């Protein structure tokens, strides 16, 4: 029997509360279920030879480095799956702060690529899908306002602007409404991020409970039941 914990992805515009939800889910798993999750990012620089291409492609995107960047993040995600996600899932949940959806939006906004085109390239390298992608949904004005209110956050003039963020959100919308075309996103669930943070966490927890992605409380020390 292939025992494993879920691979959970959190997506959303800057300022929608991804970090807070990640911390909340971490504490929920550790405090209530007694399992410490592993948290990863969308890129983790595990394919060292690709690191320069990732930095350049992300911060200085242009037509000349587009394909190298896409190739680099595909390699990095593959390494993240092979070295972190897949080995850890028998022991703990893995929570990713952004994963595929953000990349689809980046290439749509910065390079005009269709989400399906970016997806096909990435999918060729990826061996596993998350069990769940939680998309924190919030109007662009509100998310930008929240993001700008945070201390210590670097604001990128070519990214953290209304026009760009609106297009990112449009890409999110276009993708999540066609889940069958993007199976490597796993189950996609939108969460209303206008609510207080504790309510967003509660909603995410309810999604996990409904999908039996958390252990039954009564079986905390027993486990091992098949859910599906």
């Amino acid at each position, binding site marked *: 029997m*292939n025992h494993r*914990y879920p691979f959970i992805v959190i997506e959303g515009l800057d300022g929608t509360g991804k970090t807070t939800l990640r911390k909340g889910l971490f504490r*929920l798993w550790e405090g209530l279920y007694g399992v410490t999750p592993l948290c990863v990012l969308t890129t983790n620089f595990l394919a060292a030879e690709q690191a320069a291409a990732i930095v350049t492609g992300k911060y200085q995107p242009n037509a000349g480095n587009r394909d190298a960047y896409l190739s680099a993040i595909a390699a990095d995600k593959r390494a993240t799956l092979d070295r972190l996600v897949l080995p850890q899932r028998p022991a703990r949940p893995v929570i990713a702060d952004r994963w595929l959806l953000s990349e689809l939006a980046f290439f749509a906004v910065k390079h005009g690529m269709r989400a399906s085109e970016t997806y096909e390239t990435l999918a060729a390298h990826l061996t596993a899908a998350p069990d769940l992608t939680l998309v924190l949904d919030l109007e662009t004005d509100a998310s930008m306002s929240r993001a700008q209110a945070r201390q210590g956050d670097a604001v990128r003039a070519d990214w953290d602007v209304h026009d760009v963020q609106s297009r990112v959100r449009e890409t999110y919308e276009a993708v999540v409404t066609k889940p069958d075309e993007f199976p490597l996103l796993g189950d996609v669930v939108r969460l209303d991020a206008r609510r207080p943070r*504790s309510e967003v966490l509660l909603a995410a927890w309810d999604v996990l409970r409904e999908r*039996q992605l958390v252990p039954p409380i009564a079986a*905390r020390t027993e486990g091992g039941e098949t859910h*599906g």
Partner: protein
Amino acid sequence: MTSLTLPPRPPGSPPLADAWQTLADGLLTQRLHLHLDEWRAAVAEEKALPDVPGADVSVLAQRPSLLAAGDESAMALLEDAGLGFWWQLPRQHGTESRNQRGALHRAADTAAQSILAEQSGAAWSNAVASASAAAAWWVGFFAVIRHRGVHHITLEPHPGPLHEQALGTAVSVVAHGMATRVLEAALRDSDDDPALRAAYCRAIEAGICAEPELPRLIDELAELRLVDLVSTTARWRGRFTKYAGGTGAGQVE
């Protein structure tokens, strides 16, 4: 629908954090008994504290009110959470209540209310209120004997003075941490109650919001026993640093 099989916990491998929490709880109990006479003498003198200007020792020493009077299920829940000592020792050793409410009691009330959000009557609600009320007493206990303690890093005696407001913040942090434990114990019994799950999420959020301020609070508290009380109670990245490095025993108590 996703199909996966959640792994069983390997036999004989409870979370290490549980063991560290047990050690931290024991340290609190040990310190209370080690310093009880010293605390009683300070309370009997009713002198102003040399290092916490404005703090009223007689108010700090008051035992927590019997919030959960007659609620045996709330007391049982505190026991399930491993917090019987947390409630009983202040009830046993605290002084008679004069119904004076100090800043620390108000901080405890506010902390409980922020999590309970007007939920009342349930065992877990009473248990959270009781654990929060006890937080004010424990912080007060260590505040009274603080001037006899040592700095948490240097272990040098005579930590500097402290503003009572920092003690209020400490109560809030400790109350949230203990409330989280109570709610986890209640949820392990049953997670069917949506109000209970919502309260737990509020407790988690409170912990996340407090975490950025903890290093500054710990710097300000400075003294080892108060620092240990706060740092092992709050849910934050430094919670069990004391134990994670193989230390945590043999220090000045």
